[in-house]
């Protein structure tokens, strides 16, 4: 490196800092004094300044038109993972599940209410007198055989047909 001016490392550093406007106080005044009395230092300062200005020739590149959209696209891929750590569709499946549960509950309630309203209920026990209770019991005992064979009676259309079945020896081995 050809150094025509006789400067040590600190003085060179002060000279460039002075050119950058980074020196103040006594050190700045010291550099100014040196520049005033030493043409070699002045020439070096001028060369440094012109070299620095040459950097303005470098083009200032602008980002491509797609830069913003590409960057935001890459960030949008990261967004769900950061802000919403649940799998996609989680929110909707939860709503559907809750809907199904509500529908089943409603259907169950309607069915239970309907059955309750339509089924005949025995009168409440406390409303029966003692004689009524005895009569009901008598009636149940009297109809016990009918109750026991209720399923069979449901298979026949009328009582006449049943009587005929009882009288005729249809299968030969009845006895």
């Amino acid at each position, binding site marked *: 490196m050809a150094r025509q001016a006789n400067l040590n490392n600190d003085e060179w550093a002060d000279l460039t800092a002075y050119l950058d406007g980074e020196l103040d106080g006594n050190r700045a005044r010291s550099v100014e004094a040196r520049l005033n009395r030493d043409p070699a230092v002045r020439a070096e300062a001028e*060369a440094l300044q012109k*070299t620095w200005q*040459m950097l303005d020739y470098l083009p*200032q*590149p602008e*980002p491509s038109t797609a*830069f913003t959209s590409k960057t935001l696209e890459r960030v949008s891929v990261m967004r769900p993972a950061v802000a919403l750590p649940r799998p996609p569709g989680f929110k909707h499946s939860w709503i559907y599940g809750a809907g199904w549960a509500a529908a089943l509950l409603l259907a169950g309630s309607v069915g239970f209410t309907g059955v309750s309203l339509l089924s005949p209920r025995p009168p409440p026990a406390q409303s029966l007198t003692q004689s009524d209770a005895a009569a009901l019991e008598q009636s149940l005992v009297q109809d016990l055989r009918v109750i026991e064979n209720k399923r069979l009676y449901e298979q026949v259309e009328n009582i006449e047909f049943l009587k005929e079945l009882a009288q005729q020896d249809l299968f030969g081995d009845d006895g």
Partner: protein
Amino acid sequence: MGAIGETSAQLAIRDPDTRLMLGVRDDEAGAFEQLVANYQSRLVGVMHHLVGNAAEAEDLAQEVFLRVYRARKKYRARCKFSTWLFTIANNLALNVLRTRKRRPAVSLSLRDSGPLGARPAEQLVTAPSGSQPIRRMQRQELTTVIREALDKLNERQRLAVVLNKFEDMNYAEVAEVMGLTVKAVKSLLCRARMNLRDALKDYVFMDGQPIPEPPEGE
């Protein structure tokens, strides 16, 4: 927006981009988009000066923005937003430049190869002046020479020059971004400027001719 400390609040008031970044941290709609819009040109420009390749510069700038986004929840407004951003850019660029240094790749950029590549300095100095095409060519070649001079600086010198020259950062800001003392930056920039002066000494005065005007809008 979450509660922020006194220092953060003061910085947020003084620096609108710090305020914007606090919005990004708190997932405010549109804050990150605005930040990208505010800084994309500067970041791509700095990266281009550092790596010398437009496509790579864009990739690196994009990576810086992604790192900003990933780190948003840890963001504390301890310094100006731009300082924080360029610190991330600095770390990334230095890694890339060091990796490239370890594994030198063949450059395919136009300026390094083919018939339009750099010409000997003598042609530039002895070229006749006066006609516009010649001056345009001079300007193009001058740009190439300056680019090469910048590339010859070591990574730290180059980064300090780019931040100081193109980002208008003072020594203290460069020091903060690069994790150095102000004195170290002063020394770094001094050596960088002297290296540039030595590399460009044949072109500074162009054999007594005035230096062509810097290109506009490039």
